[in-house]
């Protein structure tokens, strides 16, 4: 990267639309310039169900970000999610032509191309083809095959794909707003960029991004993405459960969840109650804390159990030496890491974005992990494209 660059990460979440503009510094650090936010409408379980309404929310969030960071937003890195997104691992290969036996940089691109022909359902489109490992003529553990001799370059890819029409809905929103999309990014992948460092990725770690409408997960092992997916359950479900179980309006249930709710059961004094004040036609209520927590606990436990089943299918979670990292808005729920530890039987921490400078309120809150992750993703891809500023620097002096 030749100069400081400004990128914008946009996450259209179920509960909020969040746009973060950040400056990618020449020294590899990231400075957050501004965080724009708007409550989200027209989004259910991470997917857009009302393009018009959602468009307004996005416009609001972008305008907010523009104002706070004093940057004009023209293009964004867009986070996408939804239970329709699936993934699997696939090995792709490229055989070198007869007259050449040395692998060059362009062969990378050719293998990438091959990855894009991996079989996926007809109505789906590729979201990512994430490189895992290279093999040269079957030899394992190749870190950088450039310049190596071989006939066949193979690579394992983690392929993320989703239903094309649904992804296009998000894209359509941006087209309507006349904003260009630099890239679409699967949100758990983005969140992992924000909360995991290189060390954790190598040791093996699971990132679980618990948002409003979905719970996304991604498993890193040996520095590569091994498994990822989305479950269509999130914080909204907890709120919905509370609203139905305690017979209170959604708004009240949401506040109650944030202010008073906890996943831990048994820690309450018998008969301890939370008082909901009466206002604007809402008759006041006393809600037993035990009941409140039980409802939350059951939903969270079930979600984690479901997640465990998903993870057990891949068996990569066993190698997650660095444990599990919870992030996303709903990870702020009290006692959530204890429930997770109990179910996954591994160290769990609730984490926010790492190694970021700038607006403190932004990176200290786990609900911005994904948006910050989008910026980090941007940094990584831009580095890749230009070969990194260091490469450029070396070339200059050569």
């Amino acid at each position, binding site marked *: 990267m030749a100069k400081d660059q400004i990128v914008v990460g946009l996450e259209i979440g179920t509960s909020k639309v969040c746009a973060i503009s950040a400056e990618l510094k020449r020294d590899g650090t990231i400075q957050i310039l501004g965080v724009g936010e708007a409550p989200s409408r027209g989004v*259910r*379980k991470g*997917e857009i*169900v009302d393009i018009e309404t959602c468009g307004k929310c996005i416009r609001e969030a972008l305008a907010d970000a523009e104002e706070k960071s004093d940057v004009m937003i023209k293009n964004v890195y867009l986070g996408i999610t939804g*239970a329709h997104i699936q993934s699997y691992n696939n090995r792709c290969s490229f055989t070198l032509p007869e007259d050449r036996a040395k692998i060059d940089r362009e062969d990378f691109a050719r293998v990438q191309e091959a990855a894009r022909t991996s079989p996926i359902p007809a109505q789906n489109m590729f979201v990512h083809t994430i490189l895992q490992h290279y093999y040269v003529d079957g030899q394992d553990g190749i870190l950088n095959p450039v310049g190596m001799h071989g006939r066949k370059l193979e690579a394992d890819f983690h392929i993320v794909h989703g239903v094309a029409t649904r992804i296009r809905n998000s894209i359509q929103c941006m087209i309507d707003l006349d904003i260009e999309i630099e890239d679409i990014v699967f949100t758990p992948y983005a969140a992992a960029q924000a909360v995991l460092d290189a060390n954790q990725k190598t040791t093996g770690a699971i990132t679980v991004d618990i948002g409003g409408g979905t719970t996304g997960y991604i498993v890193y092992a040996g520095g590569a993405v091994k498994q990822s997916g989305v*479950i*269509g*359950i999130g914080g*909204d*479900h907890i*709120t*919905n*459960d509370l*609203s*139905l*179980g*305690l017979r209170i309006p*959604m708004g009240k249930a949401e506040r109650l969840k944030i202010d008073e709710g906890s996943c831990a059961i048994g820690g309450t004094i018998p008969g301890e109650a939370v008082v909901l004040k009466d206002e604007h036609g809402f008759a006041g209520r006393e809600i*037993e804390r035990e*009941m409140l927590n*039980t*409802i939350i606990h*059951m*939903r969270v*436990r*079930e979600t984690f159990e*479901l997640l465990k089943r998903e993870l057990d299918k891949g068996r990569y979670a066993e190698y997650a030496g660095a444990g599990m990292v919870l992030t996303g808005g709903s990870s702020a729920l009290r006692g959530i890491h204890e429930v997770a530890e109990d179910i996954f039987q591994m160290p769990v921490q609730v984490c926010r974005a790492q190694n970021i400078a700038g607006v403190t309120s932004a990176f200290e809150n786990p609900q911005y992990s994904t948006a910050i992750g989008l910026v980090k993703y941007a940094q990584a891809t831009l580095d890749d494209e230009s070969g990194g500023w260091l490469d450029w620097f070396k070339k200059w002096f050569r």
Partner: protein
Amino acid sequence: MITLHRSTVPAAPVIKVIGLGGAGGSALDRLVLDGIEGVTVIALNTDVQALNGGVAPQKIQLGKTVTRGLGAGGDPEIGYQAAEEAADEIKGAVEGADMIFLCTGLGGGTGSGAAPLIAHMARGSGAMVVVFATMPFSFEGKRRRTQAAESLAQLEAQAHLVVCFENDRLGETAPHKAGVQDAFVAADQMLSHSIQAIASLVRRGGIIATGLDELSAALRRSQPRCLFGYGESDGANRAHEALARALKSPLMDKGKMLADCHSVVIHLAGGPDLTVQEITTLMDEFNKHIGDDTRIDFGLATDAKLGRRLCVTIISSTGAHEAAAEPAPAPVRVQRTPPRQAPAPAQPPKRTAAAPVPVAAKAPEFEPEEDAEEIQPAAKHEPAPVAAVKTSPPAQTYRKPATEKTAAAKKEEKAEQMTLEPANRGRFEKSEPTIVDGQDLDVPTFLRKNLKLK
């Protein structure tokens, strides 16, 4: 240009619908008022007053000498005798049909007693016999349930197909606040929709036809008790909505039951604008609910009359383990039980609540009281059904919406249909359900795990 004529089924099968007893009659009324086409509708009852109050064009009184125009008094024995007495008339009525639907409420006298015999006669005429039966609410007492179960076992032996609705289940799916009347209306609607759905499934033919043969082949293999779901929608996301409604049918248990089935008939019917994309979406979603080994018989029909509507019908038989739970078939004649039983197949909850817990030894004590109740409806000779509704006990008010409904009130009916859906998905009501292992995860966990909240 060569035009190819797509021939539909050579001759449309003759379908006759028989409503037996009080509950059967109500369902029939609903069916007639809904405007079902191309079927002959026959009402059968021992109770002359109830019979005359109905709107079915063809009526047969059972037991002219046995009950003398009164009800069967909750005694299957009398119901059986009454049907026996009218055997010739019944045989005449069912003659020449390819398919006979018999709908009745089990647990009372007429329904439980006469249904197996009528099913037998219908089968004797060479038709395919499909029985739609409702089981009594559990609050109606153990005896009625035993009677119903016995009768059901016999029906299963006689009929080709038995679609059995648990009234209790209907109660669960109706919104909590719905009055008892609405719950009964919902029961009627469910019966009526089911009959219409199967009738049109068989009659409609279509691009990929599912006829009688597929239906019976798919279901006869196992036992005749079956799962049944029907849903329709004309919304923007109709494929999803119609399927969701079909799965929400009380018999489907939100699709949970489908997981164990080995064969399923699914039939889609839509207007000319039905797209392949919609079918694919719907079937993809449907496949989530069934096992990998399940055999699917897929039927598809287009019918201009449906307009924007898309209808989904799902029929399947239950697993074998449930068959074992059924009582062993009793002789055709259901054993006489103490006359403690109420005459109306659907007993109002109020009365049962007031009545003491049934004890066999005490039964004779109730006899006079029951008799009094018996005579009561017959004693009131009120010609107008609406007037009768106002003065008669709640058991009969449950017919009220059906009799008052006009065909023009279709729109209102649609709104009523919505009330059948369980209202426990909250804000996810309209969104795509997250289904894992046949469980709808949008429904609060504590509800699914039956946690009692104080």
